[in-house]
C-alpha cells in the first residue's frame, strides 16, 4: 500500500474530463428509458389504455396459444457408419501447425472448434498468439468463395484446369516468363512442388514478397557475415536487451517465441533466483514491447539510425560519422545502455526493427562487438519465417510492365493490397495474360485475376513447414473441405502434370525422403506429435566483416530525407498484423494492447504535440505523404515521440469480406523503397479535415475509479525485500465476516497472475472468446461500452522519470511536459471468484451463487437481468447481453449465421438477451477434467485442467489450479512474496492473486 504512484488508463482519467466522470458514475452508460416512457408520450398518448389492453390481450392470447402447441419435434441423426475414433460428445485432438507453430486442433463430431498450443512445439513451447487462436473462425468465414472462378464466374475444376494448362502452354511457347508470387514459403513440400512446376515450365520464377519484410536483416547479414539469412534470436540468453523499435513481443519475426524467451528471465522462477534481465527500448510509437521495457526512450523515427550509430560509437569508442543525437535524454540513455551492454558482454542483445540494410549492418557490428553471435544470436540455425527480398518483386513488376511475363500465380499473397504502388501493379498485371490467385476469397488481388483457384483453409489441408532450421512441422486436415476448394499445391501439381497428383501422397513421399530419414521417425509418429526436431547445429561466433562507415553515411542520408514535416512510422498491429486476417471479427474486436482501440486504425500522436498543432483527440486528420493521403481519426497516445505519427498497417481492406471491408484506412502506400528495401518510415503532413470520429476504445470502460490496483517495485527493491511494493508487510488488519465461512472440502480453484510476465498481447482474450462462445458485438456496441469480453487486459500508464518516483501532483505537472516518459503496466482482469462476492448478495433471484469449489457460479437461465450484480462488482467484470447476438440481424456480419456458428463450443451455452455473464473459470473444462479423473479412478493431478487463457499464454503469466493441493503450481505461486489481491482491502477475498510488477531499472540505481 505504500505506493502512491498515480496510475491512469487514459488521458481522460488523468485529466478527469467531465465525460469520463459522468460515464463512470454508473456501470452502464445508458440508463433504461423508464422516465421517458412514464413522462413522455408513452402514457400521455391518445389511447394508451386501449393500446395497453390490445397488447395485453394479444400477449395473453399468444401465450395461451403458444402453450398449447406441442414441444417441437427434435430429430436425432446418428452416423450411418461411425468413424472408429469419433465418439459423439468427446473431442478429438489433431496435431497440426499454424504458420509453423505447433498446434492441437480440437474437433467435436468432425468440426474444428478450438486451436490449442502444442506443448511440444520448440518454437512457441505451449503458447499461442491471438491470430492463431482466432484462425479457427477463418474456416467458417461466410465471405469465402464456394468454388473456383474462371473469368469472374463460377466454373468447374476441370474447366479451370484445361484453361490454365492451355494458357501455360501458350506462355511456354511464346517464351514469356511465368511467376509464382508468394509470401514466404517455408514448407519443404510446397517448395518441392514449386520446383517441380519450374521443371515442367522452365521459364518460371518463384518470387517471394512479404507484406512486411525483413530484407534489411537478411541483406545486412550477407554483407556482414556472408550469410543471407534471418538469424534466430535467443532472448532467454540475454541479460541486457536493447531494442531500437523492434516490437519483438508484439509483431517482430516470431513474437510468441520471443515472449516466452523474454519472460523466462522475468517470471516467478527467475525472480526467485534473483535474476532478471534488463530491457531498454528506443522507439517512436508506443509498441507492446515498449510497454514492457524497463526503460523506454522515445526517439523520433529519423533519430533511430543515429541512435544505433551512437550506441556503436559509445561501445567501441570509434569515431563514426553521424553518431550524434540532438535529443539530450536519448543521448545520455545511449551512454547508459552502452555501459550496461558492456557489463553484460556475451549475454547482451541489440535488435532493431528497421528494415534498412545500413542500420541492420551497424546493429550487426554492435552485436559482433558484444559477442552476441553464438550466444544470443544464432546464424547457423537460421529462421525461415521471412525470406522475402523486396527488390525481387520490384523487378518482376518492371518485367510485367515490359510485357515479359506471360503468367502469374499468387500464392498466399495479396500484393494489390500490400504493395505500396498498388495502381502500378494493377496496371502491370493488365499486360499479363494468365493471372491466377489461390486466395480463398475474392480479395483485392483475386479481383484482378482471371482465375481464382480457391485454396483450402489450413484446417482442411495437408502440408508442412520448416519455420526454423532443423524443425519440421506437419499440417494435417481436421475436416473435409467445406466448399468446392482445392489445395493450391495440388492445383500446381495438376497443372504441371506431376506424376503425383494428390498432395497428401506428395507430402508423405517428401517426408519419407527427408525429415523422416533424418529423424528416424515414422509417418505415424509425426501425425501424432505434429513435428520433428533435429539436433541443432552448434551456433558459431562470427566476426563482423561489414563496413560501418559506409553504412553510417547511408543512414545519415536516409534520416535527413525523413526529418522533414511530421515523421510517419507505419507498423503492424498486434491483432490485425499484415491484414491477411482482417475479416476475422475476433481479431477486429481484440483491443490493441496499447491503445485499446478496436475496429479501426488511427493516427497516434503525442497529446502535447497534437495540442501544439491544435488537434484534438478523435479529430479526423489528413495524412499526406508523397501523392498518397488518408483521413484518419487522431488518437492521443502517451509515450509517442514528439513530431511523429504512427499508423497501423493491415486496415482499409476493400475486398476482405463482410467484416473487414472498410475498417480503417490502408497505410501500405506509405511504405517506401529506401536503399533497396521497403521501409515503414516516411514524412507526412497533417491537416485537420474538421471531421470527428470517436474510436471504439475500451480503455476507460470498467474503471477502477482511481483505486489502487497496481503494485510495483524495482528489481533493486525486490532483491532487498521480496515483498516490496506488494503491501504484504507485517500483520494485516483483523477482518470481520458477516457471512459464515464457505468450506471447500474438495477443490478450491484459484488463479495466480504474474504481472511481470504478462506482456499484454491479448492471446488470452481471443482464447477465452473462442472457448466460451463470447459474442462479437461490433464497433458501435463497443463505443457504447458493451463489449462482451470476459477477460480484459487493463493497461495503466504512469509517469516515469528514469527511476525517480513521481508522486506529487506538482511533479506530475513538471514532467507531463512532453508526455513521452510514461511506463505501462498490463493487468489481466477477469472475475475474481470472490469468497465474499458482492455480486452474490445483491442478486434478487439467486442467479449467481458460490460453489463449494471456490467458484462464483452464474446460472444464466435464472438471471432476470436486473444488473445489480454488475453495479456491485468492484472489478467491473460482469457483462450484460444487450442483444441476442446469435440471432439478431444487426450482428449478421459476426456470428449470426448458421455456418459460422459451427465454431461454437457445444459444452457452453450461448447466452440470451437480457442476462448477465462473466468468467466461469472455464467450468466446462473443470468438470470435464474431474470426470476424466473419476472415470480413470484417480486423483486429479496438477496441470490436468488448464483454463483457456492459461493454456494459450506464451509467458505462463496465468497459473490456474487447486489451492487445496499444497503442491500445485498455483499454491506455490500464491505463496510468493509478491502476491497481492486486487482491492483486498474490501475483504471480498478474491480467488485470483496478482504478483507485483518488477521493473529492472538497472544501473540507474547504482
Amino acid at each position: 500500500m505504500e505506493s502512491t504512484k498515480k496510475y491512469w488508463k487514459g488521458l481522460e482519467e488523468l485529466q478527469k474530463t467531465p465525460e469520463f466522470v459522468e460515464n463512470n458514475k454508473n456501470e452502464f452508460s445508458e440508463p433504461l428509458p423508464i422516465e421517458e416512457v412514464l413522462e413522455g408520450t408513452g402514457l400521455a398518448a391518445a389511447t394508451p389504455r386501449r393500446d395497453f389492453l390490445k397488447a395485453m390481450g394479444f400477449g395473453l392470447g399468444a401465450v395461451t396459444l403458444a402453450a398449447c402447441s406441442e414441444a417441437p419435434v427434435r430429430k436425432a441423426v446418428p452416423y450411418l457408419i461411425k468413424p472408429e475414433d469419433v465418439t459423439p460428445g468427446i473431442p478429438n485432438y489433431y496435431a497440426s501447425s499454424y504458420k509453423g507453430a505447433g498446434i492441437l486442433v480440437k474437433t467435436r463430431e468432425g468440426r474444428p472448434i478450438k486451436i490449442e498450443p502444442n506443448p511440444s512445439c520448440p518454437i512457441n513451447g505451449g503458447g499461442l498468439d491471438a491470430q492463431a487462436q482466432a484462425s479457427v473462425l477463418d474456416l467458417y468465414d461466410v465471405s469465402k468463395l464456394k468454388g473456383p472462378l474462371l473469368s469472374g464466374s463460377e466454373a468447374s475444376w476441370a474447366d479451370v484446369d484445361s484453361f490454365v494448362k492451355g494458357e501455360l502452354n501458350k506462355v511456354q511457347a511464346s517464351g514469356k516468363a511465368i511467376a509464382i508470387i508468394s509470401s514466404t514459403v517455408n514448407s519443404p513440400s510446397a517448395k518441392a512442388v514449386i520446383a517441380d512446376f519450374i521443371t515442367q515450365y522452365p521459364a518460371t520464377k518463384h518470387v517471394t514478397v512479404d507484406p512486411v519484410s525483413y530484407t534489411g536483416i537478411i541483406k545486412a547479414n550477407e554483407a556482414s557475415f556472408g550469410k543471407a539469412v534471418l538469424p534466430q534470436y535467443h532472448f532467454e540468453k540475454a541479460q541486457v536487451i536493447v531494442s531500437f523499435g523492434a516490437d519483438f513481443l508484439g509483431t517482430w519475426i516470431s513474437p510468441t517465441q520471443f515472449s516466452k524467451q523474454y519472460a523466462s528471465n522475468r517470471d516467478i522462477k527467475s525472480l526467485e533466483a534473483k535474476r532478471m534481465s534488463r530491457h531498454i527500448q528506443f522507439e517512436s510509437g508506443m509498441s507492446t514491447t515498449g510497454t514492457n521495457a524497463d526503460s523506454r526512450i522515445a526517439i523520433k523515427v529519423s533519430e533511430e539510425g543515429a541512435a544505433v550509430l551512437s550506441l556503436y560509437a559509445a561501445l567501441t569508442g570509434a569515431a563514426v560519422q553521424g553518431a550524434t543525437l540532438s535529443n539530450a535524454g536519448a543521448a545520455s540513455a545511449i551512454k547508459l545502455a552502452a555501459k550496461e551492454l558492456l557489463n553484460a558482454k556475451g549475454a547482451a542483445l541489440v535488435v532493431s526493427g528497421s528494415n534498412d540494410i545500413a542500420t541492420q549492418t551497424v546493429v550487426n557490428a554492435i552485436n559482433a562487438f558484444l559477442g552476441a553471435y553464438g550466444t544470443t544470436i544464432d546464424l547457423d540455425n537460421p529462421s525461415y519465417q521471412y525470406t522475402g527480398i523486396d527488390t525481387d518483386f520490384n523487378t518482376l513488376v518492371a518485367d510485367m510492365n515490359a510485357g515479359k511475363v506471360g503468367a502469374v500465380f499468387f500464392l498466399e499473397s495479396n500484393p494489390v493490397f500490400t504493395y505500396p504502388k498498388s495502381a502500378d501493379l494493377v496496371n502491370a498485371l493488365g499486360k499479363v495474360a494468365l493471372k491466377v490467385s489461390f486466395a480463398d476469397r475474392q480479395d483485392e488481388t483475386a479481383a484482378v485475376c482471371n482465375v481464382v483457384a480457391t485454396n483450402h483453409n489450413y484446417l482442411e489441408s495437408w502440408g508442412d513447414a520448416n519455420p526454423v532450421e532443423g524443425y519440421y512441422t506437419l499440417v494435417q486436415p481436421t475436416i473435409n473441405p467445406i466448399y468446392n476448394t482445392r489445395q493450391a499445391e495440388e492445383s500446381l501439381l495438376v497443372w504441371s502434370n506431376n506424376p503425383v497428383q494428390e498432395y497428401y501422397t506428395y507430402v508423405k513421399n517428401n517426408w519419407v525422403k527427408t525429415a523422416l530419414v533424418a529423424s528416424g521417425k515414422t509417418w505415424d509418429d509425426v501425425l501424432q506429435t505434429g513435428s520433428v526436431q533435429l539436433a541443432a547445429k552448434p551456433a558459431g561466433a562470427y566476426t563482423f566483416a561489414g563496413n560501418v562507415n559506409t553504412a553510417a553515411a547511408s543512414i545519415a542520408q536516409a534520416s535527413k530525407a525523413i526529418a522533414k514535416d511530421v515523421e510517419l512510422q507505419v507498423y503492424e498491429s498486434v491483432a490485425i498484423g499484415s491484414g491477411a486476417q482482417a475479416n476475422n471479427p475476433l481479431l477486429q474486436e481484440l483491443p490493441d494492447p496499447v491503445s485499446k482501440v478496436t475496429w479501426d486504425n488511427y493516427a497516434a500522436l503525442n497529446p502535447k504535440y497534437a495540442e501544439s498543432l491544435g488537434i484534438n483527440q478523435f479529430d479526423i486528420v489528413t495524412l499526406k505523404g508523397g501523392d498518397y493521403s488518408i483521413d484518419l481519426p487522431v488518437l492521443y497516445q502517451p509515450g509517442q515521440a514528439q513530431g511523429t505519427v504512427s499508423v497501423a498497417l493491415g486496415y482499409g481492406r476493400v475486398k476482405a469480406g463482410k467484416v473487414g471491408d472498410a475498417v480503417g484506412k490502408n497505410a501500405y502506400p506509405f511504405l517506401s523503397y529506401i536503399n533497396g528495401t521497403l521501409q515503414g518510415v516516411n514524412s507526412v503532413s497533417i491537416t485537420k479535415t474538421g471531421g470527428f470520429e470517436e474510436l471504439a476504445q475500451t480503455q476507460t470502460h470498467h474503471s477502477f475509479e482511481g483505486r489502487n490496483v497496481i503494485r510495483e517495485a524495482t528489481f533493486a527493491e525486490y532483491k532487498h525485500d521480496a515483498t516490496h511494493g506488494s503491501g504484504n508487510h507485517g500483520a494485516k488488519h483483523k477482518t470481520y465476516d458477516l457471512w459464515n465461512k464457505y468450506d471447500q472440502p474438495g477443490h478450491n480453484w484459484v488463479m495466480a497472475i504474474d504481472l511481470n510476465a504478462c506482456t499484454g498481447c491479448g492471446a488470452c482474450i481471443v482464447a477465452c472468446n473462442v472457448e466460451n462462445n463470447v459474442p462479437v458485438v461490433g464497433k458501435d456496441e463497443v463505443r457504447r461500452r458493451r463489449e462482451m469480453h470476459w477477460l480484459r487486459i487493463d493497461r495503466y500508464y504512469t509517469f516515469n522519470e528514469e527511476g525517480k518516483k513521481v508522486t506529487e501532483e506538482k511533479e506530475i505537472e513538471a514532467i507531463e511536459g512532453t508526455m513521452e516518459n510514461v511506463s505501462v503496466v498490463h493487468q489481466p482482469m477477469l472475475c475474481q471468484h470472490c469468497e465474499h462476492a458482492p455480486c452474490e448478495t445483491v442478486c434478487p433471484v439467486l442467479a449467481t451463487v458460490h460453489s463449494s469449489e471456490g467458484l462464483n457460479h452464474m446460472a444464466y437461465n435464472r438471471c432476470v437481468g436486473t444488473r445489480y450484480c454488475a453495479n456491485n462488482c468492484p472489478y467491473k467484470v460482469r457483462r450484460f447481453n444487450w442483444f441476442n447476438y446469435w440471432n439478431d440481424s444487426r450482428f449478421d456480419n459476426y456470428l449470426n449465421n448458421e455456418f459460422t456458428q459451427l465454431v461454437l463450443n457445444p459444452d457452453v451455452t450461448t447466452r440470451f438477451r437480457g442476462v448477465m455473464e462473466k468468467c466461469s473459470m472455464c467450468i466446462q473444462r473443470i468438470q470435464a477434467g474431474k470426470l476424466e479423473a473419476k472415470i480413470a479412478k484417480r486423483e486429479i493431478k496438477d496441470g490436468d485442467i488448464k483454463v483457456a487463457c492459461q493454456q494459450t499464454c506464451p509467458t505462463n503469466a496465468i497459473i490456474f489450479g487447486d489451492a487445496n493441493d499444497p503442491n500445485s503450481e498455483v499454491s506455490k505461486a500464491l505463496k510468493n512474496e509478491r502476491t497481492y489481491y486486487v482491492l483486498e482491502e474490501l475483504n471480498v477475498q478474491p480467488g485470483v492473486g496478482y504478483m507485483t510488477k518488477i521493473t529492472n531499472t538497472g544501473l540507474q540505481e547504482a
Partner: protein
Amino acid sequence: MRNFSSDFRRLVRSLMIVTAITLGTSGMVSGQGAPADSTQAAGAAAPAAGGSAVNGDPVAGEALYKANCTSCHAINKRVLGPALAGINQKYNDEAYLIKWIKNAPAMVASGDERAVKIYEEYNKAAMTPFPQFSDDDVRNILAYIQVEGDKKPEATATGGTAGGGEGSADTGVSNFMIIGLIAVILIAFLVILVLNRVIATLERLLLNKGEAILAEEDEVEEEAKDKFAGLKRMAKNKKLVFFVVLGLVVLLASFGTVEMWNTGVHTGYQPVQPIKFSHQLHAGTNQIDCQYCHSGAWKSKNATIPSLNVCMNCHKYVQATEKYDGEISPEIKKIYTALDYNPETQAYGDNPRPIEWVRIHNLPDLAYFNHSQHVKVAGIDCQKCHGPIETMEEVYQYSPLTMKWCINCHRETEVKHEGNAYYDKVIAAHDQIKKGEKVTAAVLGGLECGKCHY
C-alpha cells in the same frame, strides 16, 4: 388445454387402431385360411415325392440346424453362405457332404473342385469347421434341410401370393385403416340418411294429426316446468350453491395448477419412430447389453444412438425372414435402404440416407447432462431414468426430466466412492465435516447451479 388435445389425439388414435385391427384381422383371417392349409398339405406330401437318399431325423436336425447353421445359411436364400435347399440332390453323395460340413477349410485346402468353387464364389469366406458333429448329426441336419427345402418352394409358390398379399397388406395396414374408416363413414351416412327419411315420414304423419300433437306438447311443457321448479328449489338452497361453486373452483384450480406445473414436461412422450425398433425384443428377449449399441453412455456425455454399422453387425444376417415368409423384415430393410445396401450382392451403394430418429428425451440447452458421469462413475442403471426399457415395444419418456427430479435424486443417491481414488481426498475432507452421515451427490456439491448450468 394441451392435455385435452393430447387426450383427444390418443382417443382418436386408439379408435383407429381398434378399427384397423378388427378390419385387418378379419381380412387376414379370410385371406390366409386357404393357403395355410394348402401349405401344410404340400409339406406333408413333399417328402414322399422327393425323399430319395435322406436318412436322418429332421426333428433332431432342426435343433442342430438352428443352433449352428442359421448365422450363415438359410434354406432358400443366399446369406453369408449359399442357400441349402436341394444340396442333397445337387451333390447326391452323403459321405462327401458329411466330410465337407464337418471340416470345410480342409476340403478347400485339399483342392476339392466343388468346394473351392463355392469358396471362391463366396468371397473366400471360410466355413466354420464342426468337428463336434457326429456323422449322424450331419445326416439329421441334411434331413431337416431336405424337409424344409422341399416344403419351402411350394410354400413360397403358393405363399408367394399370400406373402405378396401380406406384404402389400403390411405396407398397407394404413390402407386397410383408411378403407375401414371410409366404410364406417359411409355406413354412418347411410344410417343418417335412413334416419332422416324416418324422421321426415314421422313428421308428416304428425302434421296430419295436429291436435294430438298439441295436447302432447302441453303435457311435455308441464313436465318441463316441474323439472325447472326442482332446479329452482335447489338454487334457493344457498348452502348447496356455495358448496357446488366451491367444489367447482377447487376442481378448476387444482386442474389448472397441475396443468401449468407440468407445462413442458413430456413424461410419456412416445413419438412414432422411422423404424419400429423394439427394445423389448433386443434388450428384453435377446438380452443384448445396452452398452453394445449405446456405447457412448459409458464414455461420453451422449449415450449415442447407434450408427447403422452397429446394426449391421447382426442384421447383416439376422433378417427375421422366418417371420415374413422368407422375405427380409421390412423394418430391417429400412436399415439396408438407409445404407444403400444390397442384401443379395452384399454390396454398399453410394446413395446412403441417414435415419432421422425422433428424439424422445430432450433436455433444454441450458442444462448439461453427462451420461458417463452417471452410468460409468456412479454406476446407475439405465432403467433408473429410462424406466423398464427392456419391456418397451416403443420407447417413451419415463421420467419427467425436470430439475426437481434431478435434484431429488442428487439428494438421495449415495456417491459410489469406494475404490475410486478420485473421491479419496474429497471424501476424507468430508469425513471430517460429516461424520457418519451418508455422502450423497448433494454433499459433494451436486446441487450447485454451476454443476449443470454453464
